[in-house]
């Protein structure tokens, strides 16, 4: 098995990109990543997207993107796993290079959510259509059910949930690619319009357009290139019941826990070795549950751990220096690779004012639905 490195990354600004199409934003991110890597070709590509069919009426985007990127007839494949589509796509790129089948691969993600579709309906298709959505559940609703149970069982407070959003907006204010480059206060988060009690609009990631891409190659192939090398040390993926109600403990995200354990084992590192993490904070409660499952803190302690500043830029384990899904934006299919873009920039020491000091080992965690799928990757600058 060959060792695999990330040699290039690029992303569009996230936000309401009215003037750009689905294909435009993907090609923009892909060109940036290819240029950053300094390669003259790619052998194949993977494109993560949740539901371009519902958002803009376009399926078969693998071939579309290869066509508009000008790289046909190379193989291209779309990968779908709801909001962790592109995180899962990265695994396929990793395996294709480590197997020796290809030398240079582009892995990207894209979503265009602001072209007039019913985003609440489209996102809800990641839940159980017949037994959750049929009853009128929404995605904020599912995470609200988790939040209420977490507060009831562990004493997590409304303020602790809000602390996640405050921290992520603070970081996002320093990210030129973020959708919301501004700070919010605890009071603003708690007093914002309720979406699904106890979660407000400021506990929730926005509806976004955006794309992100990385270029992968083998360590051997990379020797001829003059770029910093970020090695993929570990990759783990896992699944759980699609319906939240089918889980024994609705505050536990078992797929996140397993995907983390597999990635840690493959990488030969433990949670305390991680210098910087980008995790799936689609809602404030999600970040609290995820940092527990990844072992940054004990189960049930994610609220106080966040409130005490441990996940801040200068904290014990900086989480979501990019601003996270909350502030940077969450074009669902693009999110997994956008997390990788941030971690690569952090490990290269090129993250500007939001740079985490001495970051050598980074982690990304991306999940689909209410946690029915999760993928974790661990990276190291070499």
């Amino acid at each position, binding site marked *: 098995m060959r060792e695999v490195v990330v040699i290039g990354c690029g992303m569009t600004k996230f936000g309401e990109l009215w003037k750009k199409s689905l294909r435009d934003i993907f090609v923009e991110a892909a060109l940036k990543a290819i240029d950053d890597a300094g390669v003259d070709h790619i052998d194949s590509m993977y494109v993560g997207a949740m539901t371009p069919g519902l958002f803009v009426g376009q399926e078969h985007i693998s071939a579309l993107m290869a066509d508009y990127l000008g790289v046909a007839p190379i193989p291209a494949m779309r990968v779908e796993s709801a909001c962790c589509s592109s995180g899962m796509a990265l695994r396929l790129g990793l395996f294709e290079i480590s197997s020796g089948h290809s030398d240079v691969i582009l892995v990207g993600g894209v979503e265009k959510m602001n072209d007039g579709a019913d985003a609440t309906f489209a996102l809800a298709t990641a839940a159980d259509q017949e037994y959750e959505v049929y009853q009128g*559940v929404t995605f904020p609703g599912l995470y609200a*059910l988790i939040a209420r149970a977490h507060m009831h069982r562990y004493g997590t407070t409304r303020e602790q949930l809000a602390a996640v959003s405050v921290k992520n907006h603070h970081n996002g204010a320093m990210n030129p690619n973020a959708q919301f480059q501004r700070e919010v206060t605890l009071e603003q988060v708690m007093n914002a319009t309720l*979406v699904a009690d106890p979660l407000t609009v400021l506990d929730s990631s926005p509806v976004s357009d955006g794309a992100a891409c990385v270029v992968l190659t083998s360590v051997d192939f990379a020797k001829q290139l003059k770029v910093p090398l970020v090695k993929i040390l570990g990759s783990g993926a896992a699944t759980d019941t699609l319906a939240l109600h089918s889980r024994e403990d609705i505050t536990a995200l078992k797929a996140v826990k397993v995907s983390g354990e597999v990635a840690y084992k493959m990488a030969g590192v433990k949670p305390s070795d991680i210098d910087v993490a980008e995790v799936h904070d689609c809602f404030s409660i999600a970040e609290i549950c995820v940092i527990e499952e990844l072992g940054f803190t004990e189960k049930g302690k994610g609220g106080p751990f966040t409130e005490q500043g441990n996940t801040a830029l200068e904290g014990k384990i900086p989480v979501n220096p990019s601003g996270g899904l909350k502030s940077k934006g969450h074009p669902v299919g693009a999110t997994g690779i956008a997390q990788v873009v941030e971690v690569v920039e952090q490990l290269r020491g090129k993250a500007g004012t939001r740079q985490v000091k001495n970051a050598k080992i980074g982690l990304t965690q991306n999940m689909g639905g209410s946690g029915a799928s999760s993928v974790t990757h661990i990276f190291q600058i070499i």
Partner: protein
Amino acid sequence: MPSPRYHREMPQRYRLEAAKCKKCGKSFFPPRLVCAACGSKGFDKTKLSETGTIVSYTIIRVAPADFATQVPYAIAIVESDNGVRLTTQVVDCKPEDLEIGKKVKFVFRKLYTEGQTGIICYGYKAVLV
């Protein structure tokens, strides 16, 4: 929702039909072909208990188009008295009446009118007891 798809789910939505694993005794709603607990493939038909307990709840304030006229409405995960959980609306109550641990019973109600075809979609909801 296309009518074959609606029709297929009627035993669950109208009568709370579930499946009980012949080998390990665990019940599933809706029925499955493979037991998620023991991997066995033999099931007996059973029915959910008509009462249960609220595991968690929320009030939906932003809904998809089919439910937009109903907001705000309460959604809960309920554990039926025979140990099977489902997601359901809780109706005929005020949001502040809801609490984790409160008892409910399932009732047969209209859920929504399907947008394009106007099919009236029925199923279970819960009320506080």
